[in-house]
């Protein structure tokens, strides 16, 4: 289990990743601060385009042009990854920082048996060359550790012979092969069936308690956040609008966007066939973001001040930050809307 949880293993400070498109600059990530603690999971939630995936890619330094990290620090155990050369950074990837993606179908090379990426992973970060037989034995051990039945035989299978859930288990095995300090999991179960999703996440929780890996889990699914995360950051239009413990996010959310998201999800424990409280309107065009709060056009609590100033992310409780001037109390039913959508 986690050692001391006072020092974050990964700290993202004032990260700005902008995309320089023909139409103009898109501030996909616009001043984001996040902390991942050893043995804990930070959930980053938000809707398409909020910048959650770009944040993950930035932490790996895998942002492709026209995107560029224009400001900020990414501190892994205190060392700023943005100051490293590309060669030094490639040594950190895999060894200290692992990543798994949504698409287990496309992240494995179809031409090689699945032992191949595993053996590559276990050999990659060693000074001395590892005998092939040892690497194979290690690959088989890793397959067994992620619950692949008959690992000796399965190691020689090709990706197309395996189901989506199996492939995602293999990706997890590859990502965790070097016991990285941090794992970035970007929608790791979105492409999978719900029963398989439950098994993959239970596997990740077990592995985390064994290895003490800090996980940054990017997802749009609030149910997964509640079940898997210790702390949560809610993103909207490139900014973190609320950050707190999982308890505070679900029970005492103070940002109207977080509150709206929680109300909008159909739940088994709520009455059926009733209209769901919605968030009116849609996300602003990233090329024409409004002055002031970026949520103002969809917010029931909007004031004149919200249209002029951007609310800073400020403490509203112990370990609980929200970027809202109003900070309304959470109610189960939606407030009447007065913002111009």
């Amino acid at each position, binding site marked *: 289990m986690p050692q001391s949880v006072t020092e974050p293993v990964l700290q993202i400070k004032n990260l700005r990743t902008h995309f320089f498109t023909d139409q103009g600059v898109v501030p996909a990530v616009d001043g984001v601060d996040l902390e991942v603690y050893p043995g804990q999971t930070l959930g980053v939630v938000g809707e398409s385009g909020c910048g959650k995936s770009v944040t993950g890619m930035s932490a790996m330094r895998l942002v492709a042009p026209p995107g560029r990290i224009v400001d900020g620090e990414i501190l892994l155990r205190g060392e700023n990854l943005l100051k490293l050369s590309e060669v030094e950074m490639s040594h950190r990837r895999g060894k200290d920082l692992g990543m798994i993606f949504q698409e287990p179908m496309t992240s494995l090379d179809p031409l090689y048996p699945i032992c191949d990426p595993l053996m590559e992973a276990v050999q990659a970060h060693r000074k001395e060359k590892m005998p092939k037989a040892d690497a194979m034995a290690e690959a088989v051990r890793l397959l067994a550790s992620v619950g692949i039945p008959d690992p000796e035989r399965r190691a020689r299978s090709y990706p197309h012979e395996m189901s989506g859930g199996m492939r995602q288990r293999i990706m997890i095995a590859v990502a965790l092969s070097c016991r990285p300090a941090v794992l970035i999991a970007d929608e790791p179960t979105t492409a999978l069936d719900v029963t398989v999703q439950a098994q993959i996440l239970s596997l990740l929780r077990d592995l985390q308690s064994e290895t003490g890996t800090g996980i940054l889990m990017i997802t749009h699914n609030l149910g997964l956040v*509640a079940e898997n995360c210790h702390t949560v950051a809610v993103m909207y239009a490139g900014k973190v609008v609320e950050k707190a413990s999982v308890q505070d996010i679900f029970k005492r959310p103070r940002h109207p966007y977080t509150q709206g998201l929680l109300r909008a999800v159909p739940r088994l424990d709520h009455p059926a066939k009733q209209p*769901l409280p919605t968030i009116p309107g849609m996300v602003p065009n990233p090329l024409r973001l409004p002055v002031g709060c970026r949520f103002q056009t969809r917010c029931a609590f909007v004031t004149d001040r919200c249209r002029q100033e951007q609310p800073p992310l400020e403490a509203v409780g112990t370990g609980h930050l929200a970027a809202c001037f109003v900070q309304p109390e959470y109610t189960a039913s939606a407030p009447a809307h007065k913002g111009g959508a």
Partner: protein
Amino acid sequence: MEALIEITDLVKHFPGRSTLLGKTSPPVKAVDGLTFTVYKGETLGLVGESGSGKSTTGRLIIRLIEPTSGSCKYEGKELFGLSRAEMLPYRQKMQIVFQDPYGSLNPRMTVSNIIREGLEPRKLTEQEQETEITRLLEVVGLRTSHRNRYPHEFSGGQRQRIGIARALAVNPEFLIADEPVSALDVSIQAQVLNLLLELQQKLGLTILFIAHDLAVVRHMSDRIAVMYLGKIVELADSEAIYLDPLHPYTRTLLRAIPIPNPDIRPPDTSADPGAQSGRGEGCVFRNRCPHSTDKCSIEPPLLEVKPGHFSACHYAVELPDYHDERLTTG
């Protein structure tokens, strides 16, 4: 309750592929003997994981694909075997909305022309068409000033509204919604679900709501049919499906749904066996079922085990009481 659609013994087998050596793999039994009724004015939810055959079922009913065998009656009239011309009036009564709001709209047509296509069979004058297009745009909550725009100018949620407007253009009685919100963000998903609920109330639509997300299906449906590998394993009122599920697969599915409440510990699913493995003789869920016995090598029929509650399990009434503590706390 009056039946609108009656499906009996519906089967769709896709032929197996031939291999290099001239062997043919066995046919894929996408839909394997479905019998169910959709009553007028209700929403019947069809839920299942990938490969369960739920989308194929929707496509068979409106004859986008042809069945291998079986019967589908619309108000008592057999649809399978009708010629194109004979099918035409039923094509106006039944409409489908697809998952992908990006792929299901012609990118070269303006919104008003997309809807106008649907109006054709109604033989309206040009003036009437324009009025009707305006009305339909208003019904689905789109700005009428956007009528001359192209699909790419709209967001995913708005495109799904265009797809719904097009489906409503023929004044249908029956709407098949095939994963209509799976591609949408949470806040937009709620808007589209509300629109469907509202349209059903206003227009008295009968809806077949197909989705993989049981929480969404439960929210939208009066009754739910749970599918697994081409079969209906359970069919009941939606409340009964999640409060008193009488098939082990339904229970597995329910336990796997994450609930947005941090006080609830995720249930232990490690005992639930993994992926859907090939099926042999007997019950389709046999290989994954914690309760399976030798008796399960005989295929269990879908039987009414409580009033209005059907289960295809030999042990439906003997299963331990189901209690999901996750739904009673908090």
